[in-house]
């Protein structure tokens, strides 16, 4: 009798074929166009969906197994953090500003990505991307939830956390991240994938998660470090999905190349503008720093980005259009943003401060050609105001960029003493931009960006009509959450509680 030897288990390729590819079927009583009505209109041509393959070959059963393991690790640390006064282990309470900004701006972006991937997973006509998008959609809601959960431990003790969801919709600086994700979510499925899956995940999330989360660990915040790394472990898969998708589009039809290039140009620029907030977090908001924004950019932007675009050159893809402008801005943006946040601190749900003497030494060392010459005089002015019992504030409402929605506080690429003014007349109305990059994005699709809800101009419309007190109430901004760190309840409480738990 023949004994049939069954293999112990399927190999990964076989398993992926059976549990992903074989889930698809040919429709018999409806045609493809009815089922997938959104895959054609962007102009991307796909001839064979089966050519798309997840290089990790992850199947849903393995996905749940490993995600459950990540969650167990995560909650073990979150529990320990909550049980052991973890909030008092951070370097000092200045650090909380970074995670407040994260919660108000970035975590809602995770939720937006969740919705976006759920949608495009339904819209793509191939089972490979459908399954990968389903996993990513579940990942993204996990990120939003674990981030909110981790930071809820700080909400028990500190101001500025509790109204993040409302503030995501209403307060001014959060509209930068919100408009970025809204722009992607209102695009077609392929553009969404280039926007989030490729440009944001592949080119930019390393800059957000890797050095910043390493910095969280360095500053004693195990809760944030853990959600960060737990999320980032999914990002490796997302980045791979992003890269596979772009290669898939480029290999399917040469007509796709110019469309993809246009999206890369747009989304790289939009992503870099969004990351200027992260630049300020890295250079100014971590009391102990792992690396400067410039150093992080050199590793994850320049070195890694160059490797990627050298690899994609074989398809005829060029590095993003405004790459040089980004490179020129790197030594400036964190200072420009932080000076802005500091002077508008009466309107932010986080605290800011002037750099300390040791911060200034570090900034001089990390930015030898720019900080001392261009930015230190303004910080010294602010410090002098404080020493004289005053406070440097700018009660003027800033002009915002129609595209990135940041205040137009960036300088000309080749002149750090001159703000960049760009305007376009479209259908009898003027629109303003912070840069050539944002102006270019607008001019490609003006009908889209004329609809932008800009928090500053909106404040002057009905029903607020410029009433600042009414605005503060509408955005749930309590005075205790805003302003100078030195005078904050957060600082006083942190110091008091830390004293109580210390033995000396």
């Amino acid at each position: 009798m023949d004994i049939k030897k069954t293999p112990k288990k399927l190999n990964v390729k076989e398993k992926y074929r059976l549990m992903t590819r074989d889930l698809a079927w040919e429709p018999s009583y409806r045609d493809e166009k009815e089922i997938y009505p959104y895959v054609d209109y962007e102009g991307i041509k796909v001839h064979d969906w089966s050519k798309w393959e997840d290089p990790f070959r992850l199947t849903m059963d393995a996905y749940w197994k490993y995600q459950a393991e990540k969650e167990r690790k995560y909650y073990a640390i979150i529990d320990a953090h909550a049980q052991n006064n973890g909030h008092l282990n951070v370097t000092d309470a200045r650090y909380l500003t970074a995670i407040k900004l994260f919660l108000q701006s970035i975590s809602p972006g995770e939720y937006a990505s969740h919705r976006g991937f759920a949608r495009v997973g339904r819209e793509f006509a191939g089972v490979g991307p459908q399954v990968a998008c389903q996993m990513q959609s579940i990942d993204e809601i996990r990120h939003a939830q674990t981030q909110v959960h981790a930071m809820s431990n700080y909400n028990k003790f500190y101001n500025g956390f509790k109204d993040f969801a409302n503030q995501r919709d209403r307060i001014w600086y959060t509209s930068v991240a919100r408009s970025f994700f809204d722009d992607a979510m209102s695009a077609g499925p392929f553009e969404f994938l280039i926007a989030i899956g490729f440009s944001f995940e592949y080119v930019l999330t390393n800059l957000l998660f890797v050095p910043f989360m390493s910095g969280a660990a360095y500053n004693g915040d195990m809760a944030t470090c853990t959600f960060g790394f737990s999320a980032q472990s999914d990002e490796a898969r997302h980045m791979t999905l992003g890269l596979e998708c772009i290669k898939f589009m480029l290999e399917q039809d040469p007509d796709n190349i110019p469309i993809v290039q246009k999206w890369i140009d747009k989304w790289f620029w939009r992503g870099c503008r969004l990351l200027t907030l992260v630049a300020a977090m890295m250079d100014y908001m971590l009391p102990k720093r792992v690396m400067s924004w410039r150093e992080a950019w050199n590793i994850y932007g320049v070195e890694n980005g160059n490797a990627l675009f050298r690899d994609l050159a074989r398809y005829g893809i060029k590095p993003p259009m405004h790459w040089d402008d980004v490179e020129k801005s790197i030594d400036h943006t964190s200072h420009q943003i932080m000076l802005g946040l500091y002077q508008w601190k009466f309107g932010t749900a986080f605290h800011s401060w002037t750099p300390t003497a040791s911060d200034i030494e570090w900034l001089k060392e990390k930015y030898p050609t720019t900080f001392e010459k261009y930015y230190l005089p303004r910080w010294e002015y602010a410090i002098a105001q404080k020493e004289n019992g005053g406070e440097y504030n700018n009660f003027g409402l800033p002009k915002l960029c129609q595209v990135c929605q940041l205040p137009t506080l960036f300088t000309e690429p080749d002149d750090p003493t001159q703000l960049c003014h760009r305007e376009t007349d479209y259908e009898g109305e003027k629109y303003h931009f912070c840069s050539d990059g944002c102006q270019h994005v607008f001019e490609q699709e003006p009908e889209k960006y004329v609809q932008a809800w800009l928090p500053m101009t909106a404040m002057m419309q009905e029903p607020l009509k410029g009433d600042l007190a009414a605005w503060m109430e509408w955005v749930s901004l309590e005075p205790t959450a805003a302003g100078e760190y030195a005078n904050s309840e957060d600082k006083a409480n942190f110091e008091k509680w830390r004293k109580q738990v210390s033995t000396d």
Partner: protein
Amino acid sequence: MSKVFIILQANEETRSIVEAIEQDNPDAEVVHEPAMVKVQAEGHLVVRRETIEEEIGREFDMQELNINLITLSGNVDEDEDALTLTWNS
């Protein structure tokens, strides 16, 4: 030539994994940063299951890498025996 890299959380499990990667990639450079460890090499890096199993002292499924992976750079190919990272330039 471009650098590929893999970054893992720094913990007990990945200590063995990093040692395995070093054995299989003699030219790779290991960089320790707070809470994480980065292994980078010019153009090509391979992570082998058998070497990890030797180091870790138990069976290892390549997809377990997912749990401790922070990020990577390069074109990915993974099967039950190895994960490879490459840049084609």
